[in-house]
């Protein structure tokens, strides 16, 4: 980067882009909670991405007789069978991808929208800020899950629509958080000096503001990701999941609908449920830890 031309002697270290980010990951790793989250995430990713390759799931594999229906765990079926005689363990391995896929794509949409609006709103202030924040506040007060359910019921249940619907409803809090950080950053002496040296708005945002809100975006990203995965699971459980794609929420929907509860088929319910909890917990541990690292007072240095 040709940053040197604009370098200001004695600028606070926190305003330098790279060290702040590198330090963030190091501090995440040093925080026990953060490290637990990273380990858990590694396990979840291994199970979700590699598992289906080792134990592929065939939805048409119904078993051979009526005796293969709703069977408890055994050597042949490690996590028992479904009401159709399918293998729960293989279905579980196959189901994680959709949660992950919807979670990530919805979060990307929410981050681009939220961080973008927050950046513009906080940087320009004035009427642009007023208009954008009024819109943000309106979406902030709409009850999110009911809105997602309504949108899914109106616009369809494919994986792409689900991602869009969750992404388009998850950005307001990010916009608020980023905006308030940008508001304080733009008043810092370094930014003021760089501006008086003639740097353009876009350059200031890219070189001096964005790297400094990046840690905040990462912390928020992990939490939005948890929320998106939970929202997808709830949609699928309520019967608004993609009908042709198996996901943990869909499995739980089928279990509930087929009376697995009253049959005492705990393996059918527990297996996909634990998958959801593990994936969400991994991201919320990481997000919470990043949040602590950014607000040292809350976590303290251990």
């Amino acid at each position, binding site marked *: 980067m040709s940053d040197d031309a604009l370098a200001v002697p004695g600028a606070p270290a926190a305003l330098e882009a790279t060290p702040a980010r590198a330090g963030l990951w190091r501090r995440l790793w040093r925080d026990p909670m953060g490290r637990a989250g990273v380990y858990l995430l590694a396990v979840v990713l291994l199970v979700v991405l590699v598992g289906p390759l080792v134990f592929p799931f065939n939805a048409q594999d119904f078993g051979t007789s009526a005796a293969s229906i709703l069977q408890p765990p055994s050597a042949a079926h490690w996590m028992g069978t479904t009401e159709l005689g399918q293998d729960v363990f293989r279905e579980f391995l196959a189901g994680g991808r959709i949660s992950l896929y919807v979670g990530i794509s919805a979060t990307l949409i929410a981050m681009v929208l939220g961080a973008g609006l927050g950046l513009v709103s906080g940087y320009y202030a004035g009427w642009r800020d007023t208009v954008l924040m009024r819109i943000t506040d309106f979406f902030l*007060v709409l009850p999110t*899950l009911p809105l997602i359910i309504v949108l899914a019921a*109106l616009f369809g249940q494919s994986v792409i629509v689900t991602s869009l619907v969750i992404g388009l409803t998850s950005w307001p809090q990010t916009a608020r958080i980023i905006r308030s950080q940008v508001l304080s950053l733009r008043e810092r002496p370094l930014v003021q000096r760089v501006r008086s040296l003639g740097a353009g708005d876009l350059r200031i945002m890219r070189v001096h503001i964005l790297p400094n809100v990046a840690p905040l975006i990462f912390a928020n990203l992990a939490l939005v990701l948890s929320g998106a995965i939970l929202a997808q699971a709830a949609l699928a459980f309520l019967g608004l999941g993609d009908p042709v794609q198996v996901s943990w929420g869909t499995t739980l929907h089928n279990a509930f609908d087929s009376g697995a509860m009253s049959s005492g088929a705990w393996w059918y319910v527990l297996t996909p449920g634990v998958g959801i*909890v593990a994936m*969400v917990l991994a991201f919320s541990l990481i997000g919470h830890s990043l949040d602590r690292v950014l607000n040292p007072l809350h976590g303290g240095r251990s």
Partner: protein
Amino acid sequence: MTARYLGRKVATLALTLYVTVSFNFLLFHVLPGNPVQMLARSGHFSPAARAELVRLFGLNHPLFDQYLIYLKNMLHGNLGFSYVYREPVTTVMGGAIGNTLVLVGTATLVTIVVGVFFGVIAASRAHSITDASITVGSLGLWSMPDFFTGMILIFLFGVWTHALPVSGIVTSGVTEGLWAHTLDVGRHLILPALTLVLVNAAEFSLITRNTLVDVLVEDYVVTARAKGLSRRRVVWGHALRNAMLPVMTAAGLYVGMILGGAIQVETVFSWPGMGLLIYNSVEQRDYPVLEGCFFLFAIAVIATNFISDLLYHFLDARVRRT
């Protein structure tokens, strides 16, 4: 000063309500794939019947006139007519609102008490093992989908032990007397309410902990301790009162969250409230009821935000003075 503040807040409230109504109109009556047009266009009707439907739903009017008619209907409390129940949406919702209020109200009370209690314990022993366990435990419960938590409770207290009822709001058959009836409803309430508490208390414990940790290092807390007041008295008496403000601002977001939870929990426990109504109207594509329920949920969240804003204003002297 205060009158001007109130006036501004009420004006914002009116504007928000107006935008919400218009947003609903856009969602259910204008955007492509909106239910009214789909119904009128679907192949099941003779041309005459379709013309009748178009007339009935006012689709023959220009869009702007439809919007005005919609606004007028909303002002008169006319939320439309259910496809499935063949009754006004308000009548359909009327039977469910009370049940949801009982469930969500009970759950909220317990959630706040439990959440704040654990938040205070964690903050007053900040950076200890207790603190870490409460935080990790909160995160763990927060990571549970409401419906999954409910299903686990059904296994624990219903299927395996038959300790508590897991479905509906009353035992079928006649229940004699008001007292017996209340007791019966109470027993049915335990598991759905417990589900909501388990999942949502974490939100309060985490916020309470984080604000209280900030408050506990402030000068007046140190002074109170130096005066010789016991640690417990300072935490519960002095600090907590000031830490409650951020907890209160979270109330609006919380209501949105618990209503989302209520949809899942009422579905799992067949609790006959608004949440179950939403689930059923999604399944049967009863769009007018879905629209009405969503509208009511949005109003509930907007109203809570309004009230918590006002309370915040009157309770926090720092805000009031500026």
